[in-house]
């Protein structure tokens, strides 16, 4: 039986890896740099929780962003659609999200591990063109570093979010792949709806320095709905 994976053995760590350890998390290595929570013990229970109310820490998964002149052109030339409207998102081929925050800014997010390929591919294209001297392809925005990322899923997710956020995130109002740039629990936040199958799921992106604060807020808010923390395996 292989030794359990310790996130301390990897250089990149979620700001709340100690909380995960305290909850008895089982970690899985993404590469030699990162280990994320696979589950907290009972994967079956976590799968079921995802449909009710579940919180997963995706902070260590790949993200990125492009900002500035040439942003939309670059994205489209790279073979990806540029979302047609601000505050909407599109899915890339492997499940990565590209969310349009303004006319000249997008954020890319991997909502699950396999989708990381989309994020890195787009970044590689940018780097190659930049290295080739192309100055008109916007700038990298290090959203993997500036933002923490949680997945909040389940039928109670929107109702729970109503306790901390003024934006109406209910199913029939905030559609799949809609984006909201808002405040939740006095914290600036980007909310992207990215359903898991037919289950409503919200990706919450916030100041990475507030990851521990915000985890506590959501765990508290989930209490009345019996929400549970789940690992990344449950939100694929």
């Amino acid at each position, binding site marked *: 039986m292989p030794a359990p994976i310790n996130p301390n053995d990897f250089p990149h*760590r979620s700001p709340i890896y100690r909380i995960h350890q305290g909850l008895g998390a089982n970690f899985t290595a993404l590469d030699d740099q990162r280990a994320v929570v696979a589950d907290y013990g009972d994967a079956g229970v976590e799968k079921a929780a995802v449909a009710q109310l579940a919180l997963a820490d995706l902070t260590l998964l790949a993200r990125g962003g492009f900002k500035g002149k040439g942003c939309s052109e670059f994205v489209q030339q790279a073979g990806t659609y540029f979302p047609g409207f601000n505050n909407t998102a599109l899915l890339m081929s492997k499940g990565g999200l590209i969310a349009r925050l303004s006319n000249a800014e997008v954020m890319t997010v991997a909502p699950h591990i396999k989708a990381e390929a989309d994020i890195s591919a787009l970044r590689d294209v940018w780097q190659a063109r930049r290295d080739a001297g192309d100055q008109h392809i916007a700038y990298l*925005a290090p959203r993997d570093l500036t933002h923490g990322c949680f997945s909040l899923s389940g039928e109670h997710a929107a109702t729970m979010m109503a306790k*901390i956020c003024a934006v*109406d995130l209910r199913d029939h109002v905030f559609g799949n792949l809609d984006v909201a740039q808002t405040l939740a629990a006095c*914290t600036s936040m980007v909310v992207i709806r990215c359903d898991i199958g037919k289950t409503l799921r919200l990706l919450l992106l916030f100041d990475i320095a507030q990851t*521990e*604060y915000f985890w506590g807020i959501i765990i508290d808010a989930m209490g009345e709905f019996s929400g549970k923390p789940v690992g990344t395996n449950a939100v694929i």
Partner: protein
Amino acid sequence: MVKRARLPGALLIDQKQPITFTFEGKTYQGYAGDTIASALAGAGQWVLSRSFKYHRPRGILTMAGQDSNTLVQLLGMPNVLADKTLITDGLQVEAQNYTGSLMNDKEAEISKVARFLPVGFYYRAFFRPKGIRNRIWEPIIRAKAGLGKVDTRHRGGYYDKAYGHYDVVVAGGGLAGMSAAISAAQHGASVLLVDENPILGGAMNYARADIKGKRLRARCAQLRQTIAESANITVMTDTVCNAWYVDHWLAVIKGCRLHKVRAKQFILAAGSLEQPAIFHNNDLPGVMMGSAAQRLMNLYGILPGKNAVVLTGNDDGYGVALELREAGAQVQIIEMRDLALAQATLHDGCVAAGLRIHYGSAIYAAKADRNMHHINGVEFGKIAGKGTIAKEHQQISCDLICMSVGYTPTYQLALQAGGKLGYDDDTAIFSIENLPKGFHLAGSLNGVFATDDVQADGQRAAAQALDGLEITHSLAADFLPVMVQVNHPWPIFEHPDDKNFVDFDEDLMVKDIRNAVKEGYNELELVKRFSTVGMGPSQGRHAALNAARLVAEATDRQVRDVGVTTARPPFSRETLGVMGGRVFSPERLTPMHHRHAELGGHAMRVGAWWRPGHYGVGVDRVAEINSEVRNVRENVGLIDVSTLGGLEILGADAAQFLNRVYTFAYLKQPIGRARYLLMTNEAGTVIDDGVACRMAEDRFYITATSSGVDRVCRQMLWLNAQWHMDINIINVTAAYGGMNLAGPNARKVLQKLVSDEVDISAEGFPYMGLREFQVAGIPAIVFRVGFVGELGYEIHVPATAAEYVWDQVLAVGQEFGIQPFGLETQRVLRLEKGHFIVGQDTDAMSTAEEINMTWAITQKKPFFIGKRSIELRNRALSKRKKVGFRLPSGITSMPQESNLVLKNNKMTGFISSVWLSPTLNAVIGFAYCAREDAQIGNHITIKCDDGTLHQAEIISPHFYDPDNARQKL
């Protein structure tokens, strides 16, 4: 323990679940679903409180949480409504506002001197002779004021808030509200239906519209079932819509949660509030609204009296009488109207039941036992004219008087929205007009009382709401309701012994209102302020109409001309906990936060951040700080600077942008070099500083103060919204974990963490140089700065890897004596070096000239923010100047930051930084002093906290290593 049988079929209680609680130390038993008041009534305890002024016994009046008679004290919570608060096992309830005991209140004697306490007496008392108010009256008034006791040690429950969004919100879950909700929902609208009671139905749950009393119950059950099956109706019971704000923003309170609800359309169907009649002793236990008696019987199974008198001025009183009769009471009816006006079905039912009806009569006085704990009879007579009763009186022995003489609409939310209340003095019917768009009324609140009409009125309101939502429907938009007169025009009868109460909260009698008018307060708003009518906990719910009638009569006007007092939010009481909700206090943690705790760091809050001030066991803070200072000076230290603001300025105009925003020059700043940043505002005042690292021609990574970076970022975004320069600004403060490796051994430590190809020698990586290379295998931005006055490397790495790098640096630094140091230590180090801190050594007026930073201002630039102001301020320099000072070691009284600098005993400045330097063995500091004194070698006078005066010598502020040799190593 007192236990009495309940009536069968009570809607809200479960007689299989007994619950035990105490009231005034005595144990009582009620049932699950009982309120405190119903459980006490069920046990025969009718006195619940004492009145505010005369300490008269008071009991159930409305049984609807709409009066102050039932305010009681719970542990840690005063002024709880006993007729709304459910009992729980072990609940301890106390009465309020008495001296001695509730049943024997010593202060009730005050009633005997009532004539010396006329309305508004306090405006004329308590302040003469001069000085008596504070010494004599204030302690007495404070002791008498208020009702319950606040336990400041009590920890409240869990309060929070939630947002809600609905097409239609319906406030009031009675027949009209349920009808409106169903009609709106059936056409696709999302509906929130709010009701303050535990179950939907409103008056249908207790009132009677037909002789057999089954019609309303059956209709209610049918509507409840429809609502339960409706997917788009959200029902909140035990919930009050407490305020209306513009655009239908509604404060909806359920328990400990405030729902902040946005409604596209709002339907107010909150019903009506039954009003009291006014007669002698109309306030005593045993006198209650007819609807209160119906609630007690039908909701809680309690017979409120065995011998009842129903005083009625409308047809509803007959329903009350029938309920009482069926429950086993002996009932007589005193009908204020003539026989010709009382021909409704329910009247016929009473006649058929053999109840005795005294037409055209009114109550002259209620009789009570010696202690006035409960009424025991009624004295009544024929109405001889408006407000007068013929001299021939009759007596009835009774233990219950029910008043059914009229209603006022529950108009508060409508009036909050700007609605105007109308009143027809001829028909005694209310109306509400001038409502904002999207605000609709339904039911009795809208002047519709007949059962079928009420339901139709709910549908009509829904139709209007659907119109507002632009939803097609086939509902009737209008109909003509049957006119029902529910208000007797003058249910007020004077008595020579007064005690005929208009306002139960404030103990105001008929004569008080009349006297207020005689005093010259001839408008209701003025009467309110002078007499306090309507200013108690009930907020005039049962006083406003009768007070308006009395003012109208006294001023020879109509009630419609007098109007009612202004209604403002909230509609009913709300706790501070509900208003506060859950407090969100965002905290920001650096990636190394938990390492600091493990290393013994003493955390201090810096804005939203937590930072270690210093490390150690904490026995001697100063010694621990000084130890860290010495280690940086002699070996090497490591400080977490992740909180330092970080901004990326990207774009072709990046250098030009910085040139405009900061005072220094950046156009020619070489790539790979760092340069100091000083920011001034439009007034030329220093507001921030940092370092600009030029990473590429079009890319700067700049730092800002920890507490100032968000403001700096906002300012930059705002400026560029006007300038339209080709730049992008990204706040990357939290993206990087920063650490400053400082001390003579810093290079040796860093060398162990970088590859051999990286040249970090003094020549290859000089002071203010900037490099990007891997540290411990992690890509890093590294620049050489000298904030603490030693050889130093500021290392910025991705936040997710910062803890790892921190660990690696500490590990390899062991052989060189590395120790972490904290923020307080850094402040000492930079003071020794002579570096100022924005916000600590500057204030809202500090100019670069005052703080000796003119070297950081480039005069050649045509423009930067604050340039013009600096030029103007330099023409007429301020009267102060920042200086460095020194005191000899060994002084017994240590100066503190903010201590004053005096000259001829007048303040000329203050200390901004001070410490007994472990490196220089002297007390050094920065201070503002009079400009004319700011010469090296002069002395300034510093006044310590204990009054000690020190003569401080002004010296160069570059206390340590003035040639900068150590930081350039």
